[in-house]
């Protein structure tokens, strides 16, 4: 992981020259978190899951086998969320149907295994390749379409795929999916610790790769695209290339997670797990709540969003008005909780936490809040919002988007733009860059 401050980190962290090269607190926190995840299965590995002290107090550590499996499942979901974040959080091309890529990866690998007996280790790369190809299929139109129109394409793509699956249900198993293919390396239900570590290793690998990419110059270009494509082109960078790259990378990573997932006891090549609208929505919620455009936030959000319903599932409390136990309405509760959270902190949990931590820290150091006031950058959500607004405005012919943008950009003078009418005539033509 590089520790540069360009790109998204800049918005998250106050880059104070005083901290110098020492490891910032958030990295320490992140590494501790990873270390904790790494040792989670150790107690159950040793067969010591609880200790009774003085014959009275029982301390339980570690997780049961079933809980290990659940966390393993959560790792895969976190990988989905991270893959969404690469393209949507960073470049601002909001995908409403990322399940498309998970399913391409998962179904390809599963079908190769089920139909042709290809070993999972060989089938998974094929799944990744097909998913990456799917990334090209969606990414190239994305070069022409903006804002809600792109989102419509992404929203509809998984539904087309699902319709095809239903139409050819003999091959694809229809609405309810295929049965489970072979497990990767034969690691099945009998070995939950290994299932856990396979998932954890892949999680860490994907996290590392995506952090590396997004913290490299490519990441800086991604966020610049989110902010202003024309400015990126004016810097001599081809936005189309980087956007397509982001889509393909995202699709490949999502496809990889999907392909490996189906070869574990916690995953199935089935629409409800890979392709359903619900999956795509949960991924968006996870990434936004965790903190869009940070990768780490998406990972944390993914873990929480996956495990929350699992937790709700164990709650036996019966909701009075609905007369239904919590365990049966977990998804309803999840949707309502998500709705509230999205409303309260659209910037994300991670961002909110970092901001609170930072404020505390600077208070303690006796620095004024002003030290941080200089970095009131816009969140990715705000940036994407801005792009959408211009796309919608252009579509609806509400005049040049530039006007709004410059108003936001605190332009001081009120002169009229030269040639605006000519531009406008062009821009009213549609939402696309036809040229």
């Amino acid at each position: 992981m590089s520790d540069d401050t360009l790109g998204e980190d800049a918005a998250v962290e106050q880059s104070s020259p005083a901290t110098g090269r020492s490891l910032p607190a958030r990295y320490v926190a992140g590494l501790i978190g990873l270390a904790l995840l790494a040792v989670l299965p150790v107690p159950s590995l040793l067969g010591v899951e609880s200790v009774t002290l003085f014959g009275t107090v029982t301390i339980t550590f570690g997780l049961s086998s079933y809980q290990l499996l659940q966390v393993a499942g959560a790792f895969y979901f976190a990988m989905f969320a991270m893959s969404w974040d690469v393209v949507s959080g960073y470049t601002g091309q909001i995908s409403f149907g990322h399940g498309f890529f998970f399913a391409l990866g998962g179904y390809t690998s599963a079908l190769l295994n089920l139909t042709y007996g290809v070993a999972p280790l060989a089938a998974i790369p094929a799944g990744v390749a097909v998913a990456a190809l799917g990334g090209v299929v969606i990414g190239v139109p994305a070069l022409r379409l903006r804002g809600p129109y792109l989102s419509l394409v992404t929203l509809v793509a998984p539904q087309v795929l699902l319709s095809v699956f239903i139409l050819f249900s003999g091959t694809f198993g229809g609405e309810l999916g295929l049965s489970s293919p072979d497990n990767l390396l034969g690691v099945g239900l009998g070995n939950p610790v290994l299932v856990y570590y396979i998932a954890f290793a892949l999680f860490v690998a994907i996290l590392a790769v995506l952090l590396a990419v997004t913290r490299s110059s490519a990441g800086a270009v991604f966020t610049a695209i989110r902010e202003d494509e024309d400015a990126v082109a004016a810097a001599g960078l081809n936005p189309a290339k980087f956007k397509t790259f982001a889509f393909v990378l995202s699709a490949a990573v999502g496809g990889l997670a999907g392909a490996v997932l189906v070869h574990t006891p916690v995953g199935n090549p089935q629409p409800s797990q890979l392709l359903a609208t619900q999956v795509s929505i949960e991924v968006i919620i996870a990434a936004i709540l965790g903190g869009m455009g940070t990768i780490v936030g998406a990972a944390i959000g993914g873990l929480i969003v996956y495990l929350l319903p699992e937790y709700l599932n164990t709650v036996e409390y019966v909701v009075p008005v609905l007369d239904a136990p919590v365990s049966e309405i977990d998804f309803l509760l999840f949707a309502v909780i998500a709705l509230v959270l999205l409303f309260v902190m659209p910037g994300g949990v991670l961002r909110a936490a970092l901001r609170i931590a930072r404020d505390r820290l600077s208070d303690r150091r006796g620095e004024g809040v002003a030290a941080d006031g200089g970095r009131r950058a816009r969140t990715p959500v705000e940036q994407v919002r801005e792009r959408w607004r211009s796309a919608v405005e252009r579509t609806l012919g509400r005049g040049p988007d530039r006007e709004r943008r410059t108003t936001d950009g605190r332009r001081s003078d009120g002169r009229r733009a030269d040639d605006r009418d000519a531009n406008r005539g062009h821009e009213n033509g549609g939402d696309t860059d036809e040229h």
Partner: protein
Amino acid sequence: MLAPEPSDNPIGASIANGAQLAVDELNADGGIGGADVEISVKDTKEDPATGRSRYQELTVNEGVDVTTGVFTSEVLLNIMDDIAQQQTLHMTAGAATPEASARVAENYEQYKYHFRTGPTNARHLGQNMVDFVEAKSGDLGWESVAVLVEDYAWTEPVSAVLDEKLGDTGVEVAMSQRYASGTENFGPVYDEVENSGADAAFVAMAHTGTPAVVQWASQQRPFEFGGIHVPMQLPSYYEATDGAVNYGVTQNSATPQSEVTDKTVPFAENYNEEFGSYPVYTGYIAYDAVHQFASVAEEVGSVASDDLVSGLEESSYTGTAGTIEYYGPDDQFAHDVVYEEGKVWPIFMQWQDGNQEVIYPDDLATADYQTPPWV
């Protein structure tokens, strides 16, 4: 216990409640081998992935001795490998796919922990439909039928049997269609049926049954309607569809009033007393499964899976849905419930003014078939 939406789906509720009733009876009677029986119900949401996760919760986490339930074939197939891996006895009460038994037959040692207490597997369901037509088409006046089958895993063997054998019954097959899973608008399908001139739509429907029958009735389509229609088996279905189900015919394991065995009516009455409604077929099967399990466990004096497997293979248990025996390991339908007259032989019933009247087999019949007045 794996049941879809046990608090609001009648099929799932019947599994959960039927088993609960059996467990209560067992415990009142001293449990199994003196030990109290505990029951744990998990919701599959009719979703293979969820079902699998819940199965793991039951077996990995709670370490149960036997699992039962599972309505959806796709859910069952998705847990078959886990059943093999966990080596825990599973007695299916709802899912009909013969692929499960095919796996037992092909790879006995691995999959022998799976038994299907009911319903009869999907090939036998198809056979049952053929047998019904063969016996009753004259009485019903069905000279030609349009076969409408929903496109799910469980209906594939049904379609295969119907394609193969329905033509031999002397009834003309005017049209045969597997329509898409999730179909909501049956207008186009019914137009085709009308154009084909069939006397009746001969159906196999579970997930898509309600819109199908409601649209048939409300649009007063000029053909009769019957076959295997799972929701129609539900005793409260007349109410749920506002009477649209009237004149519809379906196969069923039992009805609350039918004396399939001595145990049928008492069970249905007890169930109604306890839970305020009558069970659907999964309730009878789950109830039978728990009792059969208990009697075998008592007999072999063990709850070790391998002992139970051999015990069940030998067992002949008369429950509420018939006399339950299983095909042997060498049969193509290994560990499926035996479909045979005198053992498990489902009934056919028709909704008549809010009542489920048995019309076949004749010895159990409570009423004659009625043709819808608009046909």
